[in-house]
C-alpha cells in the first residue's frame, strides 16, 4: 500500500498546469483532484506515474457560477460543496440525491464532481446523473478549449474522451425547466457500497398522466454508465400508471442490454434489480 516514487507539483495557475500536461509523455502525469480514486490506484501500484500534478492549488477551478440558465461547476468543486450549493438545492435535486448515496461524507468532502466524471467508473453514480442532466464537459489542452457532451465523453468502463495533455476544467449543466420530476435511486452492493444497479431518471408527465419526455441512465448494472435511450423512446406517450404495460416495456428493453457479471451480482440479478428499480422509480415519479 505504498506508491512507487513519483514527483509532485501543485501549481496555482491553470496555464502552468496545462503546460506541464502538454509537455509530458502520455501516461507520465496523473492529474490529482480529490484523490479519492487516484490515491487508491497509486497505493495499489496499478498507476505508476512519474509526476502527480495536483490541481488543488488552482483557485480558478473552485468556483460554481450560474450563467443564465446554466450552472458551471469548476473542476475542484467537491461533491460536498456542490450538494450544498443553493442553486443545486433549488434546481438540481437529483444531485442532492446522488450525494446522499454516493460514497460517504469523507469521500465527498474531498472527491470532486469532475474527478468522478473523469474516472468514469462503471458504477459511478455522478456519471449516471450527469448523463441524464445532459451535462457538457469543458476541456483544455494548453490554450485550446473544447467541449464534449457527457454522452460522448464517457465512452466505456473507465474510458473517456479525455485526450493526452487535456485537463477537464468544468462541467456545465443546463438547469432543468420546472415540471420535470427527477430521482436518483441505487441498489448498493454490501462490500463498499458501490451500486450494482443505479438509476438516474428525469420524467415529464403530461396532464393525462402520460410520459411526455424522459431521460434515463443506469450505473453499476451495465458495462459502464449509459443512457437507456431505447427505453426512453418506448416510454414517451406511455401511461406510467399502467403497471403491467410499464413492466412489459421495461422487460423488453432489458433484453437489449449487456449487464456486468461479477462476484457482487450476476448479470441476471443486475437485470432484475435494474428492472425493479425502473418500475418503482417511474411509478413514484408518475405520482
Amino acid at each position, binding site marked *: 500500500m505504498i506508491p512507487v*516514487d513519483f514527483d509532485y507539483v501543485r501549481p496555482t495557475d491553470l496555464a502552468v498546469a496545462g503546460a506541464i500536461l502538454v509537455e509530458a509523455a502520455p501516461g507520465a502525469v496523473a492529474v490529482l483532484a480529490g484523490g479519492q480514486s487516484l490515491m487508491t490506484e497509486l497505493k495499489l501500484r496499478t498507476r505508476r506515474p512519474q509526476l502527480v500534478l495536483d490541481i488543488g492549488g488552482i483557485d480558478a477551478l473552485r468556483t460554481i457560477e450560474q450563467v443564465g440558465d446554466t450552472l458551471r461547476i469548476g473542476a475542484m468543486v467537491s461533491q460536498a460543496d456542490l450538494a450544498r450549493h443553493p442553486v443545486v438545492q433549488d434546481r438540481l435535486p437529483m444531485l442532492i440525491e446522488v450525494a446522499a448515496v454516493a460514497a460517504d461524507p469523507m469521500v465527498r468532502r474531498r472527491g470532486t464532481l469532475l474527478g468522478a466524471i473523469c474516472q468514469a467508473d462503471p458504477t459511478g453514480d455522478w456519471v449516471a446523473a450527469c448523463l441524464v442532466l445532459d451535462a457538457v464537459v469543458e476541456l483544455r489542452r494548453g490554450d485550446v478549449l473544447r467541449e464534449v457532451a457527457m454522452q460522448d465523453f464517457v465512452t466505456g468502463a473507465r474510458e473517456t474522451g479525455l485526450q493526452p495533455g487535456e485537463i477537464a476544467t468544468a462541467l456545465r449543466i443546463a438547469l432543468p425547466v420546472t415540471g420535470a420530476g427527477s430521482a436518483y435511486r441505487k441498489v448498493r452492493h454490501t462490500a463498499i457500497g458501490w451500486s450494482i444497479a443505479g438509476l438516474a431518471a428525469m420524467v415529464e408527465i403530461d396532464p393525462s398522466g402520460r410520459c411526455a419526455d424522459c431521460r434515463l441512465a443506469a450505473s453499476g448494472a451495465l458495462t459502464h454508465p449509459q443512457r437507456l435511450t431505447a427505453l426512453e423512446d418506448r416510454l414517451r406517450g406511455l401511461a406510467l400508471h399502467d403497471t403491467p404495460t410499464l413492466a412489459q416495456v421495461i422487460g423488453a428493453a432489458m433484453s437489449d442490454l449487456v449487464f456486468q457479471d461479477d462476484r457482487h451480482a450476476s448479470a441476471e440479478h443486475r437485470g*432484475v434489480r435494474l428492472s425493479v428499480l425502473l418500475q418503482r422509480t417511474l411509478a413514484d415519479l408518475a405520482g
Partner: protein
Amino acid sequence: MNLPIKPPKLDQAVGRLTGQAIPRLEDRRFLTGRGRYVDDIVLARQLHAHFVRSPHAHARIVSLDLSLARTAKGVVDAFSAADLAELGDIAPNWVVPGSKVKGRPPLARAMIRHHGEAVAVIVAESLAEAVDAAERVEVVYEPLAVLADQEAAMAPGAPRIHPDLADNVATRFPVGKGFDEAAQGADLRVAFKLRNQRLVPFPMEPRAVNADFDDATGRLTFYCAHQLPHLLRRMLAAAIGFPEQKLRVISPDVGGGFGPKMHFYPEDVVLAVLTQRLKRPVKWTETRGENISATTHGRDHVTHIEVAARSDGKILALRINSLANVGAYLSSMGSGVPTVNVALFVLGLYAIGHVEVLITNVYTNTTPVDAYRGAGRPEAAYIIERTIGRVALELGLDAADVRRTNFVAADQLPYRHPTGIGLDSGQYEATLAKALEQADYEAFRAEQVVARQEGRLLGAGLATYTHSCGVGMAELMGPIGFDRGGFESALVRVHPDGRVTVLSGAHSHGQGHATTFAQIAADELGVPFEHIEVLQGDTDLVPMGVGTFNSRSVSVGGSAVKIAAARVATKMRKLAAHMMQADLEGVVLEAGLFRTTGGNATLTIQELGRAAWTGQGVPRDLGIGLEETEFYHPHAMSAPNGAHIALVEVDIETGEIALRRYVAIEDCGVVINPLLARGQIQGGLAQGIGQALYEDAAIDAEGMPVADPPIPRSDMMPWMEIDFVCTPSPNNPLGAKGIGEAGALGAPPAIVNAALDALWPLGVRELDMPLTPQRVLAAIAAATAGRERA
C-alpha cells in the same frame, strides 16, 4: 468430560460499583486518537520488514532469487526459507488427539499451499524501500490444481495437500452414538444440509509486530498486537529456542482481536529471528491484503443434519456429519475449534437424549481456519437452532413452542449433556418469554397472516444459544490436547499513598478491562474507583497469566482480581484495627478513610499505606506491604445463554431482507458494567448479522479470497433491542458468565430462521448464508419451478 469438581461458594454480595454503567476510563485516550498501538512504536535504528507472498494458492516454487532485491536501495537483507533453515513449522497449541499435524512453515519451503503464503521477507531502512525491493524478487512458480473446498478435498482420488499423508483428513472427531435406534418410531425424520460459510476476521488494527533484540543484555522485547501475551512468550521462546525469562512480550493497546490475535503466526517467529540476526529492531504491520490471506479465517463447515422428532416437536435424536475446512495447515487452535468446540455444543439448551456427531477436519488450499468470535460455538448454535426451526416448520408448530418442549427443565439444572458439556444455571423459559414479549411476537404472528394474504412475506426467527465460558480447568484441557493453562492471574497493590495498581494476566483488546476490573477491585477495597489503575500486556510486569479469549476475562480474570483485592482488603482492615486499637469487625473503609463503628477514631488510607510499606508499627505477623497475587484456577465453567428474535420482511421482487426488529435477551449472570456488556452484545450482533446477511470469504476456484469482503457498517445495522435476565453463575466468585460472543452465536440462526419462516409457504426449504438478495431470489425461483413441476 464428566469430572467431579466442587464449585466454590458463591459470594452473593454485590458491591456499589458492580452493576453500574460506568463509561470506559480508556475512551478519552482512544477517542482523541491517543491510543498507543504497536505500529505507533518507533524504536531507534528501526528496520522494516515486508513479506513477499504467493499469488497462487497451490504451486511449486521452481526458483527464488533474492539477489536483485538485496542490492536495492535501502535494503539491509532479504531472506527465504533456505536462510532460516533452523526454524521448524509453527506448532499448534491445541492438538486434538489423533490429529495429523501440519503446522505453518515460517516461510514456504518448496510448496505453496494457500494464497498469500510468504516466500521471502525483505528488511529495509524504510517500509517504502522494502516494498520497492519486493518488486525485484524473482520467483518462478509452477501452479498446481487448487483444492479450496472441503467436499472436493474429500472426494475419492482427490490430490493430497500434504503428499506424505494418506488423504486430506487432519482430524476425525466422533462423539456419541445410537441415532438409528432412538430415531425409530419418530413421527418426523428430516435430513438437510447447511453451510456455515468461511469468514475473514477484520480487527480495526491489523496484526503488528516490532521485535527488538538487545545484544548487550541478550534480551528480546517483542511488541505484538496480541490477546495472550504470556502464552505468546512461551510459544515464541519454544519456537526460536530463546530463554523465556529474557523474552519480554509487550502488547500495548490492541485494536480488536476477535480470536485471530490469539494465534501464533509465521511472521512472529520470522521477526524474532531477524532482529537477532540484524541486531536492530524490525517492524511489520499487516496490510489489509495480508489480513485477508495470511491471518486466520473463521467457520467454514459443510454440515449434514438428520433429526428425528415426535409430532409435538420433541426431538428424539440428532445426527450430524460435518466437514470442517481447516485450510492448508493446522493453526494454533485449528484442530480443536471445529471439533471439540462444535461437537460438544450441538445440543444447545435442549434435553435431547441421543446425539451422534462426526466432524472431519479437512486440509485444503486455503488460509488456515482458527478461532473467530465464538470459536466453533456459533457453528454449533447454527446447527441446533436451524434444526429446531426446521422441525417447527415441518410440523407446522410454533417455533417458540418447539423450543419450550425441548428445553432442559429448570429442575434439571445443573445439567450435563450426553456430550459432556455442563449447563450451570439459567431460566431458559423466562428468557425466551421476555424476548417474545419484547418483540411483540403474538402481534407479529397476526400481522404475518394478514401480510401473507396481501402477498407480503414476513418472517419471525428465533434462536437461543449457550456455550461454555471461562475456560477453564486444567483437568479438562489436558485430555483434549489444549496446551495452555485455564487460570488467570491478578496482582493487587495498594501503594503508600492509597492508590491502587491492579496487574492482570487477561488482556483487553477493546473490552474495557481497565474499567470493569477497577470496578471489581474498588468494591473489594473500598477505595475510590478513580484511584485504581489496571495494567496488562507486559510479561515483565504482570504475573504469569493466560490472556483474553472465550469470554473468560471477567469470570476468570475478574475473579482473580476480586480474590486478590479481598485479601488485600482483609489485611488493610487487620492493620487498621491494630492501628486504631479497635475490633476487626468494627473497622470500615469508606472513600479512603477508615473508621470504627464504636468510637470516632479515623485513619487515612495514606497513614495505613505508609505503615504497611515501612513496617513501622506493624506487627511482624502481618508482614510488609499491601499486595496480593492470585492465580485463580476455575473449578467449573459457566454457560451464558440467551434468546434472540429477528423479525424480517423479504421483498419478493428484489430478494432484499429487511431486518425490521432484532431482540436479544441475555443471561450472562452478574453484569459488572451493563454499558460495556451492551457494547459486547452489539459488536457480536454486528458480526452475526454480517455473517447472516452479507459476509463471505468467497474463495474462488483459484483459491483467492475475496478482496473486499462485505463487512457490515453501522448504517447497515438495525436498532438492537437488548436486555438482560440475571441468573448468577454458581461457578465463580463474581457470579459472572461471559458475554463477548453472544451476538455472533445468536444472530445467524435467528435471521436465517426468520427468512425461512417468511419463505416456507413459497416452498423454500433451505437457504445458505449470506442471504444475499441474489440467493433469495434464486431460492424463490427454484421453489416456484419445483411447485410448477409437481
